């Protein structure tokens, strides 16, 4: 459905994305993850035809975004990171305006907007000015507006950033509904629990894609084993093993320790190191690596390069 090949985007002297290539299949929820400034927003904007790539090309639903951006626009819905509707217009006025821009036929207009209002649970707020909506409601309104022309691809730039956990869950319920209708979704998110819900994720760092696979495959191919443990002296326990061979990363939160090692055998070595320093560590066990572990490790590796 979406295909990027060797896409580069430069702004003056800064290269925002570099030689980026990946495909998104029809019906996928594709997650773009990565630290701030990794190039997620630029990538989405290039797919959305809001920016033209400096090099390379992007094909959406079989159409080249540079050669025929107007045709691409009919296929995509784009929700920018910042609330980009009019704060001084009501919910209904905003939706009507975008319906006009997409040339929604008069006869179907009312039914379409009623359906979207119902979908976004905004029916009773339709006469409220957008500026007076809560953050979560603004996001839902923006989502409804981006679905106005029944796009086949939905591009979302951090749609749940700054939204309370209940609204976040509600937003994902809406996304699932959209996804079930066959819409392909590309979502940039800083939340790795959201990334876990994607069919595939692309990890971006400094304008490059450093991993792209299903969340499970990324975890499996990590080449690391995760250990969890409890200790009253967690900080000291961390310091003791931090520099040891085979220890990829250690983090301590309160009494909890989380250690990433290259091989399962390292567990015994670490435990003996702790014993040698007479640090009491309990409940040491091997756990499934999280996407966050992969994120931290891969970025650490990229940084060394």
């Amino acid at each position, binding site marked *: 459905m979406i295909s990027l090949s060797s896409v580069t985007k430069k*702004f003056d002297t800064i290269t925002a994305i570099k030689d980026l290539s990946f495909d998104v299949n029809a019906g996928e929820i594709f997650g773009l993850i990565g630290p701030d400034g990794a190039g997620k927003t630029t990538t989405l*904007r290039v797919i*959305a*035809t*809001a*920016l*033209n790539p400096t090099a390379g090309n992007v094909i959406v639903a079989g159409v080249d975004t540079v050669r025929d951006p*107007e045709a691409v*626009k*009919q296929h*995509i819905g*784009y929700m*920018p990171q*910042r*609330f*980009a*509707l*009019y*704060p*001084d*217009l009501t919910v209904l*006025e905003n939706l*009507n*305006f*975008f319906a*006009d*821009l*997409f*040339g929604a036929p008069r006869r179907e207009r009312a039914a379409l907007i009623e359906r979207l209002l119902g979908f976004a649970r905004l029916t009773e707020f339709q006469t409220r*000015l957008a500026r007076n909506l809560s953050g979560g409601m603004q996001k839902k309104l*923006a989502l409804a*507006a981006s679905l106005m022309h029944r796009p086949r691809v939905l591009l979302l730039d951090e749609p749940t950033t700054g939204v309370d956990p209940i609204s976040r869950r509600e937003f994902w319920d809406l996304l699932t509904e959209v996804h079930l209708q066959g819409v392909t979704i590309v979502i940039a998110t800083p939340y790795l629990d959201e990334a876990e819900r994607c069919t595939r994720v692309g990890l971006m760092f400094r304008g490059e894609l450093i991993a792209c696979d299903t969340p499970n495959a990324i975890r499996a191919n990590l080449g690391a084993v995760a250990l969890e443990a409890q200790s009253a002296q967690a900080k000291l326990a961390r310091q003791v093993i931090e520099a040891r061979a085979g220890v990829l990363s250690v983090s301590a939160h309160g009494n909890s320790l989380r250690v990433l090692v290259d091989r399962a055998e390292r567990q015994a070595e670490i435990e003996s190191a702790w014993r040698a320093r007479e640090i009491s560590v309990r409940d040491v066990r091997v756990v499934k690596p999280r996407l966050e572990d992969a994120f931290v490790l891969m970025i650490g590796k990229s940084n060394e390069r």
Partner: protein
Amino acid sequence: MNSRLLSVIRKEILHIIRDRRTFAIMFVIPIIELVLLGYAATNDIRRLTTAVYDADRTQQSRQLIEAYRASDYFAINRSAGSEDELAAWLDNGQIRAGIIIPAGYADNLAKGKTAQVGFVIDGSDPVVASTAFAASQSVGQSQGIKVLQERIGALVPGLAGGMNPAIEVRPRVWYNPELRSANYMVPAVMGIILQFLTTLFTALTIVREREQGTIEQLVVTPIKSWELVVGKVIPYVGIAFFDLIEVLILGMVLFGVYVRGNIALLLGLSILFLLTTLGLGLLVSSIARTQQESMFMAFLTMLPSIFLSGFFFPLEAMPGWLQAVSYAVPLRYMLVIIRGIMMKGVGMEAFPEQVLALLILGPLILFVASMRFRKSLE
């Protein structure tokens, strides 16, 4: 009509109405400008506070003072006891002019000599001073002629009645016979308001879409750049015309300034002028990144427009290079047109050059602006 264009116009009208304060300001601006410029920015010099030091104290000296008083240029309401006192009043600004009649004035007249009279003028405001200067001389000269006639009458009885000045100049001022500033200012205010509203608000409204981030949503819709810009600008053009008519009516009510020429022609040529000011606004919006910046830049375009258009100061009096720059100022041409239609009641035939200049400048500015303006995020 294009439905996307219509919906942008509708949306823009909603923005304007919802922002009550700005909406009100748009209709109050013309009133404030007109009242300020019509009443305050006046060059009409009448009744300057004037003192007299009469060291002669004769019937003849009193006659001279009466002649000055009768001229209406000088309000003589103080009498100084000495030249020093008069000088002190001038120093501290209590008076703007002073008449000094030395002792022996009447004596000299009686002996047939030239009687000298001093006239001091506060030159700190050159406009006031030059008017007072000319008035002081002309009143004195006509008084001198009167005295001369009396002398000849005394020498040759019977001739005095037939003695008339050899030349009499009878100036008649056309278009503005009372030389009232309001007649000159009201038309100019119309030009300024047209430019101010359209340039500033065009720039503001477009930059707002960028600053607010809504442009990011717009670029992924099928709307075309021109539809967005034209749709956003049309409501402001409407308001500018409303204000134009507001000024016309206020000009009549407050200042008795009537349009002598064809109002339809005035409005028609205003559209031509608006092409240049909208273009300027668009140009500003393509450079400015924030609303604050665009406001600042719009004001920056206003300054040369006011000073290099003949709004206050005659262009003919400026140095050559500045006159050359003024040819690039659209308001310069529009003021000739507005003043021509309003004060002289002339038609198109009176200003073909101005119309041609606007026809060239408008599309030129719009072209440059649209080259710079892109409906994109870069």
